């Protein structure tokens, strides 16, 4: 546990009578992909919001590199190296791919408020942005506005921005959402390679991708982690089969 | 500082507050249901006042003047809703601000064109003129007391309308879920026109009622509009209850502050300096109140979660 890059401890959040997350404890270790699965309404989105800082938990802790970041804002967490992708693409649609990714490379370094230098052009931020764009295969459309990209390209742009942060940990919220078979196969290959850059906490509905990628799986049902372990352990878990996988 | 002065000023503050409520209720209803920020609401207030002054001069009847104010403002409301406002419901706030700003320019200059630049006067009806003696021997103008009464009746009526009637149910449902209400077979477009006309009529009523104690002139609506904005920011945008509490707070703060701040300051300062500083500070009081509420509760006293 001590070598975990990212961990949550007893995260609890309720909305009125609804307990959305009920004492969730997870950890993410170097080099791994840890998938979180669960049926709709299990509390996955609420969990991600608490990990990334857009929701404040009622109780519990989030730690990044061993440091308690529970009270930190989303921006502060990102500067500490937490890179997230959004389930519904959150991009500056009028801006080009390069501008979107440069923003990431700039923000991590705390340089987002600068007035004196140019944002685009030469420099290591520019190089880092270009490298991230090439890595996800968007090199050919770097100057296109995000609004002109296809849905699949926008999913890749989300990943490129996260990558440009040179993160300590990725948190990916359904990166495969809305992708066809070919698209999700390509993205699966990409994510597989990314785990060496930083470990990935992967919330995903696409079970093929999850079983292909995950080193560990945690199953979230009604706000609780009902099972957690290696892929084959979770697959065999009777409780999981009953509660979630049903008759699969 | 006597108790009589205090009570008089509290009544003045209440009177100012309930008139503000008539404006703020329409604004907050229109924003709550249709998501529209309407700068031209002050123009509807002015339309009501001019219609009342015109009708009173023609017929000599204050009751007919009020009918004229209500119908003219409601008609103007329906007209601009159908011609302009309707296109703005899904538009960005900037478009709403600009288009309704354009409407102000056209209403103001149009009114100047028709009625000229000189103020009109609307007389208090004979039956309501003169002072009345309240318990405790306080003399207070009957008309202002009647305004407080009208304001409270309208507030109660609005509460009944939104909480107890079918139309109110539709309004509340339309606020939460447009598609849902449309799926239930309610003509959403008619509902919106109706809500807009209701808000306009309330503004027109306020304009006519206040027009009898102030002069009726072009540009009279905007200072009231801005105070109504302060009111609903304090109360929470979209909440009728918030508009009511906010209006009373603003009315009382403004009235009492203007009278008592110079008096309080004169304890520590020379009389002339106290009067000057007091007046200047009193003019800022309601905005300071607004700032304080924002620090404490960013979405107002009765506002929901963060606005979208």
């Amino acid at each position, binding site marked *: 546990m001590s070598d975990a890059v990212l961990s949550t401890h007893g995260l609890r959040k309720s909305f009125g009578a609804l307990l959305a997350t009920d004492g969730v404890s997870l950890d993410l270790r170097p080099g791994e992909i840890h998938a979180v699965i669960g049926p709709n309404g299990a509390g996955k989105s609420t969990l991600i919001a608490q990990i990334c800082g857009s929701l404040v938990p009622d109780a519990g802790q989030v730690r990044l590199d061993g440091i308690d970041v529970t009270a930190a*804002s*989303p*921006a*502060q967490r*990102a*500067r500490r190296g937490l890179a*997230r992708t*959004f389930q519904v693409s*959150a*991009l500056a649609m*009028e*801006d080009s791919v390069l501008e*979107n990714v*440069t*923003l*990431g490379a*700039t*923000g*991590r370094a705390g340089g*987002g*408020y*600068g007035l*004196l*230098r*140019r*944002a685009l052009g030469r420099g290591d931020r520019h190089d880092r942005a270009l490298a991230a764009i090439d890595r996800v295969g968007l090199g050919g459309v770097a100057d296109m506005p995000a609004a002109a990209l296809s849905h699949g390209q926008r999913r890749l742009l989300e990943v490129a*921005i996260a990558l*440009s*942060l040179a993160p300590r940990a990725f948190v990916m919220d359904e990166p495969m959402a809305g992708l066809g078979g070919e698209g999700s196969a390509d993205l699966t290959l990409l994510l597989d390679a990314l785990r060496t850059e930083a470990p990935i906490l992967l919330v995903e509905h696409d079970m093929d991708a999850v079983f292909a990628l995950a080193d560990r799986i945690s199953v979230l049902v009604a706000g609780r982690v009902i099972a957690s372990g290696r892929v084959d352990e979770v697959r065999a878990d009777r409780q999981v089969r009953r509660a979630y996988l049903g008759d699969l | 500082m006597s108790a009589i002065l205090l009570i008089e000023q509290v009544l003045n503050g209440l009177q100012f507050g309930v008139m503000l409520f008539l404006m703020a209720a329409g604004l907050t209803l229109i924003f709550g249901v249709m998501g529209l*920020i309407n700068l031209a609401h002050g123009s509807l207030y002015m339309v009501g006042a001019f219609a009342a002054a015109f009708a009173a001069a023609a017929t000599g009847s204050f009751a007919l003047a009020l009918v004229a104010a209500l119908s003219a403002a409601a008609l103007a409301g329906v007209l601009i809703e159908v011609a302009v406002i309707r296109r703005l419901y899904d538009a960005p*706030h*900037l*478009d709403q*601000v*600009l*288009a309704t*700003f*354009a409407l102000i*320019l*056209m209403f103001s*200059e*149009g009114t100047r*064109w028709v009625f000229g630049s000189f103020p009109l006067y609307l007389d208090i009806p004979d039956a309501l003129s003169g002072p009345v003696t309240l318990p405790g021997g306080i003399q207070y103008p009957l008309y202002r007391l009647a305004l407080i009464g009208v304001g409270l009746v309208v507030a109660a009526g609005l509460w009944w309308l939104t909480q107890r009637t079918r139309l109110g149910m539709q309004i509340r449902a339309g606020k939460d879920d447009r598609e849902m209400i449309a799926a239930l077979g309610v003509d959403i477009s008619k509902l919106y026109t109706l809500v807009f006309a209701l808000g306009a009529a309330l503004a027109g009523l306020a304009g006519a009622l206040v027009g009898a104690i102030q002069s009726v002139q072009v540009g009279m609506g*905007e200072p009231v509009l*801005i105070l109504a*904005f*302060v009111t609903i*920011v304090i109360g929470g*945008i979209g909440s009728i209850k918030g508009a009511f509490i906010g209006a009373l707070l603003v009315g009382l703060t403004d009235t009492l502050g203007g009278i008592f701040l110079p008096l309080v300051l004169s304890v520590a300062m020379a009389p002339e300096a106290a009067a*000057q500083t007091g*007046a*200047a500070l*009193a*003019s*800022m009081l309601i*905005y300071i109140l*607004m700032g304080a509420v*924002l*620090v404490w509760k960013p979405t107002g006293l009765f506002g929901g979660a963060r*606005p979208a």
Partner: protein
Amino acid sequence: MIPERLVTIGAVAGLLAVALGAWALGEIFTITLATRAAILALAATGLNIALGYGGLVSLGHAAFFGLGGYAMGILAFHAQSYTPLELGALTIEGTKSMPVIWLVAICVSALAAWVIGLLSLRTGGVYFIMITLAFGQMFYYFAISWSAYGGEDGLPIYLRNSFPGVDTLVPVQFFGLCFAALVLALLLSARLRSAPLGLALNAARQSPARVAAVGISPTRVKLVAFVISGAITGLAGALYADLNRFVSPAMFSWQLSGELIVLVILGGVGRLAGPVIGACLFVTLEHWLGGLTDFWHVWLGAILLGVVLFARGGIVGLLTGKAGPHV
């Protein structure tokens, strides 16, 4: 269609050409009109940073315009009446020196923008509009009730303030000063747009969550932009007061805030040349329509309504054939 850079250069050069042409022909009044256009363009350039880049619909920019104006009025008033300004224990001499007045105007309006921004950015959207409008009105009433500096009647300044090496009483020289300030503001505005702050501001308008997710606080970015925006509009206020040699509460009026937004929209929101073209158009309309009818605001309203409903990009949008940023 014309590239945007060319439109910008053309607009700025056009304004200069009108003033120089009028000077050559001895048309003093036209120089004054051009000066008025340059100052309004400067104020709108400030607003454009908040409105066009940041999507912050401020209906209270007259607050900064008026503060700049009163900074000039108060300093010059004390200089011309040879009485120092007593602020508690602090005694400040009045001044007729433009550079000092400008600096004070910029600092005072930046400070006000910081406070107003801090409060109004706690929420967003329609709250922001109403709160900025309300604070503008607060300054308006404050100016009216502050009788030491003229109250409702305003404050006349008998002689235009001075600038080293320039005879500010000569209309074309004063135009030169205002024009130089405008060009500087445009350069700053262009610089800001291409700097990291501008990139972040632009993205924060489109998706605040995205900006936060890469480690930049969207609120802080907007606040910085709002302060810069207010400071530039404040400088314009000081120049405007010097043009008229008069300050009055009208500089704080909500109509002026509305008109500044109108300038930006007519020209093209979020475009460098937008405020310049908008201001020139506004001053021309005001002069021309105002000469035809006393009720020219009706026509301004109609034009504005047409632009909002049918031509979102304003003049720059029409010239470049490209829709600008969506605010």
